[in-house]
């Protein structure tokens, strides 16, 4: 009983701390940018919206970016936690299982084909990258099943690396045949961008992300046991096959949602879970919600830097996440070791 109430208290503290930080980031980020806007004008009722530049900068240019950063950051961080626990590998992330490569291939094909489809305000590139990420994970999962009932983390990992390499090669081949401008456009997409322009792609990405969060909500205890080893988890009564299925399905949904919205933003999926574990410990009941919140705030901050540091020109957000995330992670690691 005491242990349970202790966990509940730690959970509350964790969510309150990380939540407050995330909310603070989300409040500051839309106010700061390359152009200065006045909040009084943004919310002024006397200026018609069509004439109100400040309101349009706030509601069209900045707010969707901040929300997109929250969705992408939390999606990538959550799937990173789950992939790392499931594969019992600290370096695992959506890239490892070919999800990022599949998403990139989908986007590359859509960009190169100049496909002209627009479904509920969502253009073809995010749709194709979502399909690519799910497709890649399905192939990897089926391959890992072929060996035995239930997945083996080694087979999953190896199949993921092989499929990732294969899909990247196909993607490069498509780029090689593509027009020069399309190749440049694909490169831009790969480096990540959160300037989504309207709310439709965010709403579209929220559907799979909600499904994923529902799946993740069933996992914390199971992941704690699985990360110790599948046999001991089975001995403790965990239905490992079912848990793995839920974990893979949810992680692929959240990665697909994130990548289709912002591109394969580097490092978030690997670094955020580790930073969070260093801060709150290894209990997945704490790590999962804390990672979602910290991933969101981390990406909101990185995007803020990306759009202001070289203003009016903008940096791809993936460069900022990699440059900031790497050293910060190393600092935490060495501080612990010492």
């Amino acid at each position, binding site marked *: 009983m005491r242990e349970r109430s202790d966990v509940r208290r730690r959970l509350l503290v964790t969510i309150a701390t990380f939540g407050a930080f995330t909310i603070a980031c989300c409040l500051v980020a839309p106010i700061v*940018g*390359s*152009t200065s806007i006045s909040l009084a004008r943004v919310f002024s009722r006397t200026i018609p*919206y*069509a*004439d*109100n*530049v400040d*309101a*349009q*900068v706030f509601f*069209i*240019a*900045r707010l969707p970016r901040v929300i997109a950063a929250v969705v992408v950051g939390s999606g990538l961080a959550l799937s990173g936690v789950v992939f790392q626990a499931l594969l019992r590998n600290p370096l695992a992330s959506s890239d490892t299982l070919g999800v990022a490569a599949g998403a990139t291939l989908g986007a590359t094909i859509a*960009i190169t084909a*100049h*496909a*002209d*489809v*627009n479904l509920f305000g969502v*253009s*073809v*590139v995010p749709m194709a990258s979502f399909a690519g990420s799910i497709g890649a994970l399905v192939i990897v999962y089926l391959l890992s099943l072929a060996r035995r009932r239930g997945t083996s983390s080694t087979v999953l990992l190896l199949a993921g690396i092989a499929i990732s390499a294969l899909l990247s090669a196909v993607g490069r081949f498509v780029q*090689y045949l593509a*027009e*020069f*401008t399309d190749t*440049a*456009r694909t490169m*831009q*997409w790969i480096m990540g*961008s959160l*300037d*989504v*322009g*309207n709310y439709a*792609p965010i709403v579209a990405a929220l559907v799979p992300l909600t499904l994923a969060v529902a799946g993740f909500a069933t996992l914390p205890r199971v992941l704690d046991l699985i990360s110790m080893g599948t046999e001991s988890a089975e001995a403790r009564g965990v239905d490992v096959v079912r848990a793995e299925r839920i974990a893979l399905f949810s992680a692929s949904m959240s990665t697909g949602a994130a990548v289709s919205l912002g591109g394969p933003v580097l490092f978030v999926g690997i670094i955020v879970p580790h930073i969070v574990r260093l801060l709150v410990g290894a209990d997945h009941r704490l790590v999962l919600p804390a990672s979602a919140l910290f991933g969101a705030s981390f990406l909101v901050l990185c995007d803020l830097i990306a*759009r202001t540091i070289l203003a*009016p*020109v*903008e940096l791809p957000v993936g460069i900022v996440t990699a440059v900031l995330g790497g050293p910060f992670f190393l600092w935490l690691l060495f501080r612990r070791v010492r």
Partner: protein
Amino acid sequence: MAALPPRPLIRRAALGAVLVVAQIAAAAQATPTSATRVISLIPATTEMLFAMGAGDKLVAAGSYDHYPPEVERLPRVGALLDPNIERILTLKPDLVVLYGTQTELKNRLNRASIPYYTYVHKGLPDITETIRSLGTRVGVGERAQSLASSIESHLDKIRSNVGKLPRPKTLLVFGRERGSLRSIDASGGVGFLHDMLEAAGGTDVLSDVRRQSVTMTTEMVLARAPEVILELRYGPPGAGDAEDLRQWNALAAVPAVRSQRIYQLRGEEYVVPGPRVVQAVEQMARTLHPEAFK
């Protein structure tokens, strides 16, 4: 002091050294005789060669060269990123027109003692300058000279046509993700797209950004408040083009959106800085200032 030779002598010696170095440098690139078997790897220079009447000297072209139609009969030898050195050597060219960044190709041509002409996309004046120097190089100097002069006088005529009219602040977009306002690539304050826009009587909203291309965000579009948006497209028209242009309507505070001065210009001539630049600038000017061409 006394040991030093008199100053004029030093100056003459230095001048002599400079001349020798310049001659060695010239010998490395130029050949005295005019070229007869030319390979051009860049769409712009291929168009220039045909326009100056040197199309018959071309023995191969780059994989992206599609104009004029006669170019289709030529064998292809790759392009900027993938020049096929083996095919280039087999065709025994006496001049290869290549892009400035193709360093590896230059090294290989040097080793094979094949002369080359280095081209780089720059501003509008560089187009006619390239036509003149390339024309001299392939032995049609006079025709190239008259082509360049005719391009210049046409451009001057367009400039004077629109010269006294108000110059709208224009955003010149040459790339954007279809069906959204993401990855908007626009012309910055330098380069031939910028020069074309200024010649056509517009003011580039990004003229203070000293780059050829700028990836814009919706915030930048709102902040820069262009009065006209010109979108360049190449390739065949698509069914969703009109629908795609309506994406801009999301930015209702932008003057160009409010006055619906958003136009699509379609054609390779807008993105290939060759002799067709005259048609491109004229069409831009007609779009920005229809009243000047009645």
